[in-house]
Protein backbone atom coordinates (compact mmCIF):
# COMPACT_ATOMS: atom_id res chain seq x y z
CA UNK A 1 0.00 0.00 0.00
CA UNK A 2 1.39 3.38 -0.98
CA UNK A 3 0.89 6.29 1.41
CA UNK A 4 0.36 8.37 -1.71
CA UNK A 5 -1.73 6.63 -4.36
CA UNK A 6 -1.24 8.02 -7.85
CA UNK A 7 -3.61 7.34 -10.73
CA UNK A 8 -4.99 9.00 -13.83
CA UNK A 9 -8.78 9.03 -13.63
CA UNK A 10 -9.29 11.04 -16.82
CA UNK A 11 -7.27 12.34 -19.75
CA UNK A 12 -4.93 15.08 -18.57
CA UNK A 13 -5.72 14.54 -14.91
CA UNK A 14 -3.31 13.00 -12.45
CA UNK A 15 -4.74 12.23 -9.02
CA UNK A 16 -2.72 12.09 -5.82
CA UNK A 17 -4.63 10.43 -3.01
CA UNK A 18 -3.26 10.76 0.51
CA UNK A 19 -3.64 7.22 1.72
CA UNK A 20 -3.19 6.82 5.46
CA UNK A 21 -6.90 6.75 6.26
CA UNK A 22 -6.47 5.24 9.73
CA UNK A 23 -4.27 8.21 10.68
CA UNK A 24 -6.59 10.70 8.94
CA UNK A 25 -3.89 11.04 6.28
CA UNK A 26 -1.55 12.76 8.72
CA UNK A 27 1.75 13.76 7.16
CA UNK A 28 4.51 11.46 8.33
CA UNK A 29 8.03 11.42 6.89
CA UNK A 30 7.10 8.91 4.20
CA UNK A 31 4.07 10.84 3.01
CA UNK A 32 6.01 14.13 2.96
CA UNK A 33 8.77 12.52 0.92
CA UNK A 34 6.19 10.99 -1.46
CA UNK A 35 4.59 14.38 -2.00
CA UNK A 36 7.97 16.00 -2.69
CA UNK A 37 8.72 13.28 -5.20
CA UNK A 38 5.29 13.55 -6.84
CA UNK A 39 5.64 17.33 -7.22
CA UNK A 40 9.08 16.96 -8.79
CA UNK A 41 7.87 14.27 -11.18
CA UNK A 42 4.79 16.29 -12.17
CA UNK A 43 6.85 19.08 -13.72
CA UNK A 44 8.08 16.95 -16.60
CA UNK A 45 4.96 14.77 -16.89
CA UNK A 46 3.47 15.79 -20.21
CA UNK A 47 0.35 13.67 -19.70
CA UNK A 48 -0.51 15.46 -16.48
CA UNK A 49 -2.12 18.82 -17.18
CA UNK A 50 -3.99 19.13 -13.91
CA UNK A 51 -3.17 17.70 -10.49
CA UNK A 52 -6.06 16.56 -8.33
CA UNK A 53 -5.04 16.22 -4.70
CA UNK A 54 -7.43 14.39 -2.38
CA UNK A 55 -7.60 12.08 0.63
CA UNK A 56 -8.71 8.52 1.30
CA UNK A 57 -11.34 7.96 3.96
CA UNK A 58 -12.98 10.59 6.14
CA UNK A 59 -10.11 13.09 6.14
CA UNK A 60 -8.38 15.13 3.50
CA UNK A 61 -5.38 15.53 5.76
CA UNK A 62 -5.12 15.99 9.52
CA UNK A 63 -1.77 17.76 9.26
CA UNK A 64 1.42 16.73 11.01
CA UNK A 65 1.51 13.44 12.86
CA UNK A 66 1.26 14.50 16.51
CA UNK A 67 2.48 11.08 17.59
CA UNK A 68 5.83 11.95 16.04
CA UNK A 69 6.08 15.26 17.90
CA UNK A 70 6.97 16.23 21.44
CA UNK A 71 10.36 14.62 21.56
CA UNK A 72 11.58 16.20 18.37
CA UNK A 73 14.67 18.40 18.72
CA UNK A 74 14.48 21.89 17.20
CA UNK A 75 17.22 21.03 14.73
CA UNK A 76 15.09 18.09 13.59
CA UNK A 77 12.03 20.32 13.23
CA UNK A 78 14.07 22.47 10.86
CA UNK A 79 14.70 19.41 8.70
CA UNK A 80 11.05 18.29 8.73
CA UNK A 81 9.97 21.76 7.68
CA UNK A 82 12.36 21.70 4.76
CA UNK A 83 10.14 18.96 3.33
CA UNK A 84 7.15 21.20 3.98
CA UNK A 85 8.92 23.97 2.12
CA UNK A 86 9.61 21.75 -0.86
CA UNK A 87 5.97 20.65 -1.03
CA UNK A 88 4.49 24.15 -0.68
CA UNK A 89 7.02 25.93 -2.90
CA UNK A 90 6.86 23.04 -5.34
CA UNK A 91 3.07 23.25 -5.66
CA UNK A 92 3.25 27.03 -5.88
CA UNK A 93 5.95 27.00 -8.59
CA UNK A 94 4.56 24.04 -10.52
CA UNK A 95 3.34 25.26 -13.86
CA UNK A 96 0.15 23.25 -13.73
CA UNK A 97 -3.03 23.94 -11.82
CA UNK A 98 -3.39 21.97 -8.62
CA UNK A 99 -6.90 21.28 -7.34
CA UNK A 100 -7.36 20.27 -3.74
CA UNK A 101 -10.50 18.12 -3.52
CA UNK A 102 -11.13 18.31 0.21
CA UNK A 103 -13.19 15.24 0.99
CA UNK A 104 -13.27 15.69 4.78
CA UNK A 105 -11.14 16.99 7.64
CA UNK A 106 -8.44 19.49 6.65
CA UNK A 107 -6.66 20.54 9.80
CA UNK A 108 -3.28 22.04 10.61
CA UNK A 109 -0.80 21.45 7.83
CA UNK A 110 -3.63 19.65 6.00
CA UNK A 111 -5.52 22.94 5.74
CA UNK A 112 -2.36 24.63 4.47
CA UNK A 113 -1.69 21.85 1.99
CA UNK A 114 -5.11 22.61 0.52
CA UNK A 115 -4.32 26.33 0.47
CA UNK A 116 -1.08 25.63 -1.40
CA UNK A 117 -3.25 24.29 -4.22
CA UNK A 118 -4.63 26.75 -6.76
CA UNK A 119 -8.26 25.78 -6.37
CA UNK A 120 -10.05 24.20 -3.45
CA UNK A 121 -13.24 22.25 -3.94
CA UNK A 122 -14.94 20.67 -0.94
CA UNK A 123 -17.34 17.98 0.12
CA UNK A 124 -20.39 19.55 1.81
CA UNK A 125 -19.39 17.99 5.15
CA UNK A 126 -15.69 18.91 4.92
CA UNK A 127 -14.25 21.19 7.57
CA UNK A 128 -11.12 23.25 7.99
CA UNK A 129 -9.11 24.12 11.07
CA UNK A 130 -5.81 25.89 11.76
CA UNK A 131 -5.24 23.72 14.80
CA UNK A 132 -1.56 24.54 15.42
CA UNK A 133 -1.84 26.80 18.47
CA UNK A 134 -3.81 24.12 20.30
CA UNK A 135 -0.53 22.16 20.32
CA UNK A 136 1.48 25.13 21.52
CA UNK A 137 2.83 25.49 18.00
CA UNK A 138 2.29 27.98 15.20
CA UNK A 139 1.14 27.52 11.61
CA UNK A 140 3.65 26.13 9.15
CA UNK A 141 3.60 24.98 5.52
CA UNK A 142 2.81 28.51 4.49
CA UNK A 143 -0.26 29.03 6.69
CA UNK A 144 0.71 32.48 7.97
CA UNK A 145 1.10 33.55 4.36
CA UNK A 146 -1.38 31.56 2.30
CA UNK A 147 -4.47 32.11 4.42
CA UNK A 148 -4.02 35.87 4.79
CA UNK A 149 -3.37 36.10 1.07
CA UNK A 150 -6.55 34.17 0.42
CA UNK A 151 -9.06 35.73 2.81
CA UNK A 152 -7.40 38.89 4.15
CA UNK A 153 -5.33 39.60 7.22
CA UNK A 154 -8.04 40.06 9.85
CA UNK A 155 -10.06 37.00 8.91
CA UNK A 156 -6.91 34.93 8.60
CA UNK A 157 -5.80 35.88 12.08
CA UNK A 158 -9.18 34.91 13.47
CA UNK A 159 -8.74 31.46 11.95
CA UNK A 160 -5.10 31.13 12.97
CA UNK A 161 -5.42 32.45 16.52
CA UNK A 162 -8.74 30.93 17.61
CA UNK A 163 -8.04 27.64 15.81
CA UNK A 164 -11.78 27.19 15.37
CA UNK A 165 -13.36 24.99 12.76
CA UNK A 166 -14.71 26.39 9.50
CA UNK A 167 -17.34 24.53 7.53
CA UNK A 168 -17.08 24.13 3.76
CA UNK A 169 -19.93 26.64 3.40
CA UNK A 170 -17.97 29.19 5.46
CA UNK A 171 -14.98 28.46 3.25
CA UNK A 172 -16.99 29.43 0.19
CA UNK A 173 -18.22 32.57 1.90
CA UNK A 174 -14.69 33.58 2.93
CA UNK A 175 -13.32 32.65 -0.46
CA UNK A 176 -10.74 29.97 0.23
CA UNK A 177 -13.08 27.29 -1.10
CA UNK A 178 -13.97 27.73 -4.75
CA UNK A 179 -17.05 25.58 -4.61
CA UNK A 180 -18.83 22.76 -2.86
CA UNK A 181 -19.39 19.70 -5.01
CA UNK A 182 -22.62 17.81 -4.51
CA UNK A 183 -23.34 14.24 -5.47
CA UNK A 184 -20.59 11.65 -5.71
CA UNK A 185 -17.66 13.76 -4.55
CA UNK A 186 -14.87 11.81 -6.24
CA UNK A 187 -16.68 11.77 -9.58
CA UNK A 188 -17.58 15.46 -9.36
CA UNK A 189 -13.97 16.37 -8.54
CA UNK A 190 -12.68 14.52 -11.59
CA UNK A 191 -15.29 16.25 -13.75
CA UNK A 192 -14.19 19.62 -12.39
CA UNK A 193 -10.52 18.81 -13.06
CA UNK A 194 -11.24 17.47 -16.52
CA UNK A 195 -12.78 20.74 -17.61
CA UNK A 196 -9.57 22.59 -16.66
CA UNK A 197 -7.39 19.91 -18.23
CA UNK A 198 -9.04 20.66 -21.51
CA UNK A 199 -7.75 24.24 -21.64
CA UNK A 200 -4.35 25.37 -22.97
CA UNK A 201 -1.76 23.88 -20.61
CA UNK A 202 1.15 26.25 -21.16
CA UNK A 203 -0.93 29.39 -20.88
CA UNK A 204 -2.76 28.05 -17.86
CA UNK A 205 0.52 26.90 -16.35
CA UNK A 206 2.27 30.22 -16.63
CA UNK A 207 -0.86 32.09 -15.57
CA UNK A 208 -0.99 30.07 -12.41
CA UNK A 209 2.72 30.39 -11.71
CA UNK A 210 3.04 34.09 -12.36
CA UNK A 211 -0.19 34.93 -10.55
CA UNK A 212 1.28 33.24 -7.50
CA UNK A 213 4.53 35.16 -7.85
CA UNK A 214 2.69 38.37 -8.45
CA UNK A 215 0.88 38.48 -5.15
CA UNK A 216 3.88 37.39 -3.12
CA UNK A 217 5.61 39.72 -0.81
CA UNK A 218 7.70 36.65 -0.47
CA UNK A 219 6.58 33.17 0.42
CA UNK A 220 10.18 32.26 1.04
CA UNK A 221 10.41 34.78 3.83
CA UNK A 222 7.22 33.51 5.50
CA UNK A 223 8.53 29.96 5.33
CA UNK A 224 11.82 31.03 6.87
CA UNK A 225 10.17 32.83 9.73
CA UNK A 226 7.83 29.91 10.32
CA UNK A 227 10.68 27.44 10.29
CA UNK A 228 12.69 29.47 12.82
CA UNK A 229 9.65 30.22 15.03
CA UNK A 230 8.42 26.67 14.84
CA UNK A 231 11.83 25.27 15.67
CA UNK A 232 11.91 27.38 18.85
CA UNK A 233 8.33 26.47 19.80
CA UNK A 234 8.91 22.80 19.23
CA UNK A 235 11.45 22.96 22.06
CA UNK A 236 9.10 24.58 24.63
CA UNK A 237 7.51 22.95 27.64
CA UNK A 238 4.08 24.12 26.47
CA UNK A 239 4.39 22.11 23.30
CA UNK A 240 5.64 19.09 25.22
CA UNK A 241 2.75 19.26 27.66
CA UNK A 242 0.21 19.68 24.86
CA UNK A 243 1.54 16.59 23.15
CA UNK A 244 1.44 14.75 26.48
CA UNK A 245 -2.21 15.80 26.89
CA UNK A 246 -2.97 14.70 23.36
CA UNK A 247 -1.65 11.26 24.11
CA UNK A 248 -3.45 10.99 27.46
CA UNK A 249 -7.13 10.37 28.09
CA UNK A 250 -7.68 14.04 28.95
CA UNK A 251 -7.01 15.11 25.38
CA UNK A 252 -5.83 18.50 24.17
CA UNK A 253 -8.57 20.40 25.99
CA UNK A 254 -6.86 19.49 29.26
CA UNK A 255 -3.57 21.16 28.32
CA UNK A 256 -2.31 23.81 30.67
CA UNK A 257 -0.03 26.32 28.94
CA UNK A 258 2.44 28.01 31.23
CA UNK A 259 3.95 30.25 28.61
CA UNK A 260 7.37 28.73 28.68
Amino acid at each position, binding site marked *: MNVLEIDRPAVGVIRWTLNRPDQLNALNAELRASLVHAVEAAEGDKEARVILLTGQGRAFCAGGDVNQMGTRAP*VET*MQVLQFGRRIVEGLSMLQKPVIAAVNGIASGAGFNLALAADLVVAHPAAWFQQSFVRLGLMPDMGGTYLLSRSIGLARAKEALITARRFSAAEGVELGFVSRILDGDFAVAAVTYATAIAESAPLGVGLTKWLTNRGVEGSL*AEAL*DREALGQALLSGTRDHASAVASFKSKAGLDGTHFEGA
Partner: protein
Amino acid sequence: MSENLLTEVRGSVAHVIFNRPEKLNALSFGLLEAFEQAIADFGADDSVSVIVISGAGGNFSVGYDVSPSGEGYTDLGAESGIWSDWESLRQSNQRWLKVWDTPKPVISAIEGHCMGGATQLSVCSDITIVSSTARIGWPSVPLGGGLLSPPSAWLIGPKKAKELSFIAGSGMSGEEAARRGWANEAVAEGTAVDCAQELAARIAQTPLDLLRLKKMALNRQYDLQGFRETFLMGAEWDAIAHTALGAQRTVASVHERGLKETIRRFKSGEGV
Protein backbone atom coordinates in the same frame (compact mmCIF):
# COMPACT_ATOMS: atom_id res chain seq x y z
CA MET B 1 27.49 4.72 -12.40
CA SER B 2 28.29 6.22 -15.75
CA GLU B 3 31.83 5.96 -17.14
CA ASN B 4 31.60 9.70 -17.56
CA LEU B 5 31.62 10.21 -13.84
CA LEU B 6 33.87 8.71 -11.20
CA THR B 7 33.24 8.70 -7.49
CA GLU B 8 35.55 7.91 -4.62
CA VAL B 9 35.18 8.20 -0.86
CA ARG B 10 38.19 9.14 1.28
CA GLY B 11 37.25 9.07 4.94
CA SER B 12 34.15 11.24 5.24
CA VAL B 13 34.95 13.14 2.03
CA ALA B 14 33.27 12.04 -1.20
CA HIS B 15 34.89 12.91 -4.51
CA VAL B 16 32.80 13.34 -7.66
CA ILE B 17 34.98 13.50 -10.76
CA PHE B 18 33.93 14.47 -14.29
CA ASN B 19 35.53 11.90 -16.56
CA ARG B 20 35.33 12.83 -20.23
CA PRO B 21 38.91 14.08 -20.49
CA GLU B 22 38.96 13.71 -24.29
CA LYS B 23 36.07 16.22 -24.43
CA LEU B 24 37.59 18.42 -21.72
CA ASN B 25 34.76 17.14 -19.50
CA ALA B 26 32.03 18.79 -21.57
CA LEU B 27 28.71 18.35 -19.79
CA SER B 28 26.64 15.89 -21.81
CA PHE B 29 23.17 14.77 -20.74
CA GLY B 30 24.53 11.42 -19.56
CA LEU B 31 27.20 13.10 -17.50
CA LEU B 32 24.76 15.56 -15.97
CA GLU B 33 22.30 12.83 -15.02
CA ALA B 34 25.02 10.77 -13.37
CA PHE B 35 26.26 13.90 -11.60
CA GLU B 36 22.81 14.73 -10.24
CA GLN B 37 22.41 11.18 -8.96
CA ALA B 38 25.82 11.21 -7.28
CA ILE B 39 25.09 14.50 -5.52
CA ALA B 40 21.72 13.15 -4.34
CA ASP B 41 23.30 9.91 -3.08
CA PHE B 42 26.19 11.53 -1.24
CA GLY B 43 23.86 14.25 0.04
CA ALA B 44 21.69 11.60 1.70
CA ASP B 45 24.63 9.57 3.03
CA ASP B 46 25.33 10.52 6.65
CA SER B 47 28.78 8.91 6.51
CA VAL B 48 29.80 11.63 4.05
CA SER B 49 30.33 15.13 5.46
CA VAL B 50 31.82 16.98 2.49
CA ILE B 51 31.63 16.52 -1.30
CA VAL B 52 34.52 17.56 -3.57
CA ILE B 53 33.87 18.03 -7.30
CA SER B 54 36.71 17.96 -9.80
CA GLY B 55 37.55 16.97 -13.38
CA ALA B 56 39.84 14.24 -14.70
CA GLY B 57 42.68 15.02 -17.11
CA GLY B 58 43.68 18.47 -15.92
CA ASN B 59 40.45 20.32 -16.69
CA PHE B 60 37.39 20.97 -14.56
CA SER B 61 34.90 21.28 -17.43
CA VAL B 62 34.42 23.38 -20.56
CA GLY B 63 30.69 23.63 -19.81
CA TYR B 64 27.65 22.36 -21.65
CA ASP B 65 28.37 20.02 -24.53
CA VAL B 66 27.46 22.20 -27.49
CA SER B 67 28.81 19.84 -30.11
CA PRO B 68 26.40 19.72 -33.07
CA SER B 69 26.31 15.93 -32.65
CA GLY B 70 23.64 16.76 -30.12
CA GLU B 71 25.26 14.52 -27.58
CA GLY B 72 24.36 16.89 -24.84
CA TYR B 73 22.61 20.00 -23.91
CA THR B 74 22.59 22.36 -26.85
CA ASP B 75 23.24 26.02 -26.39
CA LEU B 76 22.92 26.57 -30.12
CA GLY B 77 19.65 28.39 -30.02
CA ALA B 78 16.07 27.38 -29.80
CA GLU B 79 16.17 24.79 -32.53
CA SER B 80 13.43 22.79 -30.93
CA GLY B 81 11.42 25.88 -30.00
CA ILE B 82 11.77 28.47 -27.29
CA TRP B 83 9.59 26.56 -24.85
CA SER B 84 11.60 23.37 -24.82
CA ASP B 85 14.78 25.43 -24.92
CA TRP B 86 13.56 27.20 -21.80
CA GLU B 87 12.48 23.96 -20.14
CA SER B 88 15.88 22.49 -20.78
CA LEU B 89 17.68 25.57 -19.47
CA ARG B 90 15.43 25.70 -16.45
CA GLN B 91 16.00 22.04 -15.69
CA SER B 92 19.70 22.63 -15.95
CA ASN B 93 19.57 25.58 -13.53
CA GLN B 94 17.44 23.54 -11.14
CA ARG B 95 20.11 20.86 -11.27
CA TRP B 96 22.87 23.30 -10.19
CA LEU B 97 20.65 24.49 -7.35
CA LYS B 98 20.60 20.92 -6.06
CA VAL B 99 24.27 21.43 -5.29
CA TRP B 100 23.36 24.65 -3.47
CA ASP B 101 20.63 22.72 -1.59
CA THR B 102 22.71 19.64 -0.77
CA PRO B 103 22.64 19.43 3.03
CA LYS B 104 26.42 19.43 3.44
CA PRO B 105 29.37 21.45 2.17
CA VAL B 106 30.35 21.04 -1.49
CA ILE B 107 33.80 22.12 -2.73
CA SER B 108 34.68 22.65 -6.39
CA ALA B 109 38.36 21.95 -7.08
CA ILE B 110 39.23 23.58 -10.39
CA GLU B 111 42.22 22.89 -12.64
CA GLY B 112 42.53 24.01 -16.25
CA HIS B 113 39.36 25.09 -18.02
CA CYS B 114 36.18 26.01 -16.17
CA MET B 115 33.85 27.48 -18.71
CA GLY B 116 30.21 28.29 -19.40
CA GLY B 117 27.84 26.10 -17.42
CA ALA B 118 30.69 24.86 -15.24
CA THR B 119 30.98 28.36 -13.79
CA GLN B 120 27.37 28.05 -12.61
CA LEU B 121 28.31 24.87 -10.78
CA SER B 122 31.22 26.58 -9.07
CA VAL B 123 28.98 29.46 -7.98
CA CYS B 124 26.51 26.95 -6.48
CA SER B 125 29.30 25.17 -4.61
CA ASP B 126 29.98 26.33 -1.09
CA ILE B 127 33.73 26.65 -1.54
CA THR B 128 35.91 26.84 -4.65
CA ILE B 129 39.61 26.02 -4.73
CA VAL B 130 41.22 26.97 -7.99
CA SER B 131 44.61 26.38 -9.56
CA SER B 132 46.30 29.76 -10.10
CA THR B 133 46.74 28.92 -13.80
CA ALA B 134 43.12 27.79 -14.32
CA ARG B 135 41.02 29.60 -16.92
CA ILE B 136 37.54 30.69 -15.82
CA GLY B 137 36.05 31.36 -19.23
CA TRP B 138 32.94 32.81 -20.83
CA PRO B 139 31.65 31.58 -24.24
CA SER B 140 33.94 32.32 -27.16
CA VAL B 141 31.20 33.58 -29.42
CA PRO B 142 27.93 35.40 -28.63
CA LEU B 143 25.28 32.70 -28.36
CA GLY B 144 22.95 33.80 -25.60
CA GLY B 145 22.78 35.95 -22.54
CA GLY B 146 21.72 36.33 -18.94
CA LEU B 147 22.54 32.78 -17.92
CA LEU B 148 26.15 32.85 -16.74
CA SER B 149 27.11 36.33 -15.61
CA PRO B 150 24.31 37.09 -13.11
CA PRO B 151 25.25 34.14 -10.84
CA SER B 152 28.92 35.17 -10.86
CA ALA B 153 27.92 38.79 -10.18
CA TRP B 154 27.01 37.72 -6.64
CA LEU B 155 30.68 36.94 -6.11
CA ILE B 156 32.59 39.46 -8.18
CA GLY B 157 30.16 42.38 -8.31
CA PRO B 158 28.32 43.88 -11.27
CA LYS B 159 31.20 45.73 -12.95
CA LYS B 160 33.42 42.74 -13.60
CA ALA B 161 30.40 40.52 -14.31
CA LYS B 162 29.22 42.91 -17.00
CA GLU B 163 32.67 43.03 -18.57
CA LEU B 164 32.72 39.22 -18.74
CA SER B 165 29.20 39.18 -20.10
CA PHE B 166 29.67 41.81 -22.78
CA ILE B 167 32.96 40.56 -24.22
CA ALA B 168 32.76 37.12 -25.80
CA GLY B 169 35.76 34.97 -25.01
CA SER B 170 36.61 36.87 -21.84
CA GLY B 171 37.63 35.23 -18.59
CA MET B 172 39.76 35.26 -15.50
CA SER B 173 42.82 33.33 -14.44
CA GLY B 174 42.52 31.28 -11.27
CA GLU B 175 44.69 33.84 -9.52
CA GLU B 176 42.37 36.70 -10.55
CA ALA B 177 39.27 34.65 -9.67
CA ALA B 178 40.55 34.16 -6.13
CA ARG B 179 41.55 37.81 -5.80
CA ARG B 180 38.05 38.91 -6.83
CA GLY B 181 36.29 36.54 -4.44
CA TRP B 182 35.02 34.14 -7.10
CA ALA B 183 37.15 31.43 -5.48
CA ASN B 184 38.36 30.98 -1.90
CA GLU B 185 41.97 30.40 -2.77
CA ALA B 186 44.30 30.00 -5.74
CA VAL B 187 46.84 27.22 -5.28
CA ALA B 188 49.76 25.85 -7.28
CA GLU B 189 48.84 24.14 -10.55
CA GLY B 190 48.08 20.47 -10.02
CA THR B 191 47.30 20.75 -6.32
CA ALA B 192 43.66 21.94 -6.31
CA VAL B 193 42.16 18.54 -5.51
CA ASP B 194 44.69 17.81 -2.76
CA CYS B 195 44.11 21.23 -1.22
CA ALA B 196 40.34 20.69 -1.44
CA GLN B 197 40.69 17.28 0.23
CA GLU B 198 42.72 18.83 3.04
CA LEU B 199 40.18 21.60 3.53
CA ALA B 200 37.31 19.09 3.36
CA ALA B 201 38.93 16.94 6.05
CA ARG B 202 39.14 19.98 8.34
CA ILE B 203 35.51 20.87 7.61
CA ALA B 204 34.47 17.29 8.32
CA GLN B 205 35.67 17.67 11.91
CA THR B 206 32.60 19.82 12.52
CA PRO B 207 29.55 17.62 13.20
CA LEU B 208 27.36 17.10 10.14
CA ASP B 209 24.15 18.33 11.79
CA LEU B 210 25.86 21.64 12.51
CA LEU B 211 27.37 21.88 9.05
CA ARG B 212 23.92 21.37 7.58
CA LEU B 213 22.43 24.14 9.71
CA LYS B 214 25.35 26.51 9.06
CA LYS B 215 25.03 26.02 5.31
CA MET B 216 21.27 26.53 5.45
CA ALA B 217 21.61 29.74 7.48
CA LEU B 218 23.97 31.27 4.92
CA ASN B 219 22.11 29.99 1.87
CA ARG B 220 18.75 31.27 3.10
CA GLN B 221 20.30 34.70 3.57
CA TYR B 222 21.24 34.77 -0.11
CA ASP B 223 17.99 33.12 -1.23
CA LEU B 224 15.99 35.83 0.53
CA GLN B 225 18.12 38.43 -1.22
CA GLY B 226 17.13 36.84 -4.50
CA PHE B 227 19.96 34.47 -5.36
CA ARG B 228 17.74 31.49 -6.16
CA GLU B 229 15.10 33.46 -8.04
CA THR B 230 17.60 35.29 -10.21
CA PHE B 231 19.63 32.14 -10.79
CA LEU B 232 16.50 30.38 -12.12
CA MET B 233 15.54 33.44 -14.12
CA GLY B 234 18.69 32.97 -16.19
CA ALA B 235 16.74 30.32 -18.11
CA GLU B 236 14.17 32.87 -19.23
CA TRP B 237 16.83 35.41 -20.23
CA ASP B 238 18.90 32.91 -22.16
CA ALA B 239 15.98 31.24 -23.95
CA ILE B 240 14.85 34.68 -25.09
CA ALA B 241 18.41 35.66 -26.05
CA HIS B 242 18.62 32.55 -28.23
CA THR B 243 15.88 33.99 -30.43
CA ALA B 244 17.78 37.25 -31.06
CA LEU B 245 19.01 37.73 -34.59
CA GLY B 246 22.52 38.29 -33.27
CA ALA B 247 22.57 34.87 -31.65
CA GLN B 248 20.95 33.18 -34.63
CA ARG B 249 23.68 34.53 -36.92
CA THR B 250 26.27 32.90 -34.70
CA VAL B 251 24.34 29.62 -34.76
CA ALA B 252 24.07 29.76 -38.55
CA SER B 253 27.78 30.32 -38.79
CA VAL B 254 28.54 27.38 -36.50
CA HIS B 255 26.37 25.16 -38.70
CA GLU B 256 27.92 26.47 -41.89
CA ARG B 257 31.58 26.79 -40.93
CA GLY B 258 31.97 24.83 -37.72
CA LEU B 259 32.67 26.14 -34.25
CA LYS B 260 36.43 26.62 -34.64
CA GLU B 261 36.17 28.67 -37.82
CA THR B 262 33.35 30.73 -36.32
CA ILE B 263 35.48 31.53 -33.29
CA ARG B 264 38.42 32.43 -35.52
CA ARG B 265 36.32 34.78 -37.63
CA PHE B 266 34.78 36.40 -34.57
CA LYS B 267 38.16 36.96 -32.93
CA SER B 268 39.67 38.36 -36.10
CA GLY B 269 36.91 40.93 -36.30
CA GLU B 270 35.50 39.57 -39.58
CA GLY B 271 32.31 38.91 -37.69
CA VAL B 272 30.22 35.80 -37.80
